[in-house]
């Protein structure tokens, strides 16, 4: 977090006009690619993330295979022009390597991997435009792409970040709030099972603020969950028309 903190909340409103507990506008589309077994695009504010899933399929290289379960492979990646500022180098950054793991581990608890021994389920998360919340949008999109691919899951996984900005706990940080805020806490959960599958905190919170932030995140996750289900229903209805 940087030192110079611009005023990000004025008269109880954030710079983009939202109240602290508001999500940004969300647009979800499922089944956007022809070749992938499953795919989805999630837009939340100016953040736009594409997720694609292949599998269960044969494991290459073979030595990665596990005899009792499907392996999950996941890559999170930012396209070179997706970020503000200079062109991002296409070489995987340490951040991208970490987030690929974090996203995989956010999804693993939901996937019924033991139904598909000796196979791989590949998840590709491509960030098309980054304006805060790309990992959480990526998880939300990837879980839909898994559903679109027909992979059995205990529940969808939905995700959103909460944070602390000018001393206020707020939902769904955008890039400016993430950069100049005091804390950023991305959370993922299987909403109907109340299981938290991802939790990170960058920044400092008191124990009380942490509890408050976690509650707000779960509330936001429930709202996103409804949109996920709508999007799947929409695709199903369209397909069966």
């Amino acid at each position, binding site marked *: 977090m940087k030192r110079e903190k611009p005023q990000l909340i004025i008269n109880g409103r954030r710079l983009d006009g939202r109240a602290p507990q508001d999500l940004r506008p969300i647009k979800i589309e499922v089944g956007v690619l022809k070749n992938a077994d499953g795919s989805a695009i999630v837009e939340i504010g100016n953040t736009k993330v594409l997720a694609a899933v292949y599998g269960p399929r044969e494991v290459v290289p073979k030595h990665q295979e596990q005899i009792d379960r499907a392996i999950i492979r996941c890559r999170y990646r930012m396209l*070179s022009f997706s970020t503000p500022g200079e062109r991002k180098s296409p070489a995987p950054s340490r951040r991208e390597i970490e987030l690929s793991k974090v996203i995989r581990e956010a999804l693993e608890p939901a996937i019924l991997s033991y139904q598909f021994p000796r196979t791989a389920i590949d998840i*590709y998360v491509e960030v098309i*435009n980054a304006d805060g919340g790309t990992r959480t949008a990526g998880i939300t999109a990837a879980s839909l792409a898994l559903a679109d691919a027909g992979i059995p899951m205990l529940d969808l996984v939905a995700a959103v970040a909460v944070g602390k900005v000018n001393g206020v706990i707020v939902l769904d940080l955008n890039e400016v709030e993430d950069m100049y805020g005091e804390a950023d806490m991305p959370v993922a959960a299987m909403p109907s099972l109340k299981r938290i599958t991802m939790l990170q905190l960058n920044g400092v919170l008191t124990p009380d603020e942490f509890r408050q932030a976690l509650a707000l995140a779960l509330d936001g996750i429930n709202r996103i969950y409804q949109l996920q289900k709508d999007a799947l229903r929409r695709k199903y209805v369209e397909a069966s028309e």
Partner: protein
Amino acid sequence: MSVTPETPIIPKVKRDAILNVLSKGFHIDKRPLYSYRNIEIVKNVAPNADSSVLVKLGHTQVLAGIKLEIGQPFPDNPDEGVLIVNAEYVPAASPSFEPGPPDENAIELARVIDRSLREPRVVALDKLAIIPGKKVWVIWLDIYILDHDGNLVDASMIGAMLALAQLKLPRIDVDPNTGEIKIDKSQRETPLPLNRYVATVTVYKIEDILLIDPTAEEEAMATASITMAITEEGNIGGIQKRGLGYFEEKEFDRIVEISLSKGKELIELIKQYTK
């Protein structure tokens, strides 16, 4: 090492069916052999890019985006801006693409697009010097193949051309004392200076049949292809033969004819979308 790729296995029944349709002058989706699929353009898909465009050519999807930076010119062209083209086959785009740095196919694609822009001087690089010999505009053009349903070069070239044609240069201020240059991306006025439009037309060969814009299924049956970059003026601004097969000398008249006529068509289309 460049290695012979695995040949996709196409069942004989299907192969015969496709050949049968082709021999009657049609693609498997019922288009005539020399017509492109429906082209859909979505502009500004990545607002953080200085220019971006999504091209859908049938089910093929290509995302082209540009980042502008200020950098140093190449020593042998000190007064010109720099254009750098990269391409990547995103693993989402096909079950056969793998994650990792661009392979020879992606590198070849990028270099064919690069030459098709560079040789006919599409971008007026000579107008992109800021401080001649020291500071020039650097255009990073990145092409991502998102969904592969055939004919990636032509789709990529449409994306590249549109991303360039849409690009507006941001305002810059040169501090007269320090010489530091600041870009103000909130202010964009001047369109990128272009000399001309160019499109590529790739002619594929399946058995003895020549055709354009195959689907992935058809493309898998092609033994060779030849890409010609066609300029607004009706010249040939680049050629690349690809594939395990060959062309016969006598086929070239037809190839040139097709390329010139379809190239003209594509350029018209690109110009319409530019407005």
